[in-house]
């Protein structure tokens, strides 16, 4: 069996288990390459349909192309999109770009807080029992130790020192009330695998990942004040695969352009323990 086929089957199995066992279920879509691959896998798993709502946490500092691409895909593929935003913090200017918070605090306020609120439901919508995310084990240390089904308590906390066992395709799918589970179908995918799959399946991705002629592109997408471009002439997913495999990026960490990681001591443990994705 080809490696990508193996990864695809395993991820689809996990997505279908989540859909069968966890209700209500949503999926976090950051518009980046990983969660767009995840969205592609959801459409495969359900034979062209997206039977769960997608959640986008909009910090308002996303690069404009990302939002245009988001709205276009939502229309073309016809899925329900829930946009979460921490409006209070934004109106009070409690952010890093406004100079009132450091980067880690800003991530926590605009992403984690808003994610928690969205997952908790509102007048018209019950709380989510689970949410599917596109994180990968090779991104950073705390994600390298994640489970496919990773429980969060009623306060969204991740008990990293007491994770549930999972083996033989059996996961933690039983939960006490008010907790929820994060489902991670892409844990075994590497960054190269993601690009190989995008090339193989011809998955539409946002143009920011490709060199538009000025010799620069984004390797990882986030908010514009904390995400830096890299020097690269890659114009297609195939170029990126070559660049990652043998080229100058082969030994540079993917999230090297994400400033909040540095501020969390070289990883995301502190942020993620409190509920960050």
């Amino acid at each position, binding site marked *: 069996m080809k490696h990508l086929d193996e990864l695809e089957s395993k991820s689809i199995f996990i997505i279908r288990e989540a859909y069968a066992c966890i209700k209500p279920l949503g999926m976090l879509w950051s518009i980046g390459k990983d969660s767009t691959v995840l969205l592609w896998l959801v459409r495969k*798993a359900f*034979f062209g349909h997206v039977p769960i709502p997608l959640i986008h946490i909009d910090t308002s500092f996303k690069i404009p192309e990302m939002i245009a691409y988001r709205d276009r895909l939502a229309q073309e593929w016809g899925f329900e999109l829930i946009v979460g935003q921490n409006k209070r913090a934004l109106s009070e200017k409690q952010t890093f770009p406004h100079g009132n918070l450091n980067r880690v605090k800003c991530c926590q306020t605009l992403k984690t807080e808003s994610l928690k609120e969205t997952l908790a439901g509102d007048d018209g919508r019950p709380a989510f029992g689970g949410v599917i995310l596109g994180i990968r084990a090779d991104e950073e*240390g705390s994600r390298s130790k994640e489970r496919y089904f990773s429980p969060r308590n009623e306060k969204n906390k991740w008990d990293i020192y007491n994770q549930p066992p999972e083996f*033989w395709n059996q996961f*933690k799918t*039983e939960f006490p009330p008010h907790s929820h589970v994060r489902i991670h179908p892409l844990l*075994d995918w590497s960054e190269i695998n993601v690009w190989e799959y995008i090339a193989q399946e011809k998955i539409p991705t946002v143009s920011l990942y490709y060199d538009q002629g000025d010799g620069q592109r984004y390797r990882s997408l986030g908010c514009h004040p904390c995400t830096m471009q890299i020097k690269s002439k890659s114009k297609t997913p195939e170029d990126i695969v070559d660049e990652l495999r043998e080229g100058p990026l082969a*030994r540079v960490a993917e999230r*090297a352009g994400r400033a909040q990681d540095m501020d969390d001591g070289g990883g995301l443990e*502190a942020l993620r323990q409190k509920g960050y994705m």
Partner: protein
Amino acid sequence: MSSVQAINLVVAGHVDHGKSTIIGRLLAETQSLPIDKIKRIQETCDQSGRPFEYSFIIDAFKDEQKKGITIDTARVFFKTIKRPYIIIDAPGHTEFLKNMISGASRAHGGLIVLDAQQGIKENTRRHGYMLSFLGIKQVAVLVNKMDLVEYSQVKFENIIEEFSSFLFKHGITPKLFLPLSGLNGDNFTLKSKNMSWHNGPTLVECLDSFEILIKSSQSPFRMPVQDIYDFGQKIVAGPIETGKIDERDTVVFYPSFKKSKLKAVYQGGAAGLVLQEPLFIERGELATIEKEEAPQIKSNLDVVLFWLSERPMKINTNYIFKMGTAKRNVKLVEVKSLMDSSELKELSKSDEIRINQVAKGSIQLESPLPIDSRGFASCTSRFVIVDDYNIVGGGLVIESKI
């Protein structure tokens, strides 16, 4: 595109025998790390006044670095000229056995690390046994810290003799024993000058010698039903765990014994069956092919099981049993024999199974399920036990003695 499949290898063994150090060193020796990774770890160590350790590359949790131990399994991506790897670093403390099992269950092969000076310890044996329980047949033994025993060939050979006979008893024949020094990097990528008496492979060559055992498509078709989707047409969805199917086959579902010809088959990662008959099928059934070997339909099962919870498993108490996509209430009826997963000596008879114990016994499901006691498919032979929302044990269905 990558046509070579990545292989998953678990690194197991007793606490402090150097598992994380070996992996960290391997990544450094093979230039697999991001350029600034070592520098950044060095800086963090300087700030906190700790000496640099290769294990910090893998032990990413802050508490792991502070305490100098591995708490949870990590996935480490690594490649050689031959192929890509996912190396699974398992913790060596007994209290984190559930984490070791979570990691090891995904592995195609295992590397058991042991300390040349300390020799075989509690979790060297326990992990050796658990690898065999999990069905991992390819195992290599890494004898680490050879620098502490003056690279002694005699020490190395004594360890081979003692540990081989233990592993052999549990059905494991190690493919090789390899003397290493994680501290100095002996035998990682180059043959060590300190151990010219050793003619075997280097660590990298050892990794490349593992194989992915291909699941036989000769086995009968088994597809645990995950769900039934109705997007215009009804599709019975699930993974094809073993065997093959095509549109000319007739499927039989168990335990319901419902039967249908097929209208269409979706193959590949997103597998599914479209039936000709309007059957009511539910999640938890098993799809099989009529003309192939049928599973046995049973509710009284003979099993071997290991227990992971502080709260012992007691007879005549309700638990949840999960196998494939099926779920049933279950009771432990009888404990026939009991042993500790490290000493592997028979313990005195008991009505309960305690943490880290392995038992042979019989269990009673509230209603029957399809079983293949030959064990070719995990959806009809391997199960977990759930208590109070958590997976607390796992086991294999074995042939019952009539």
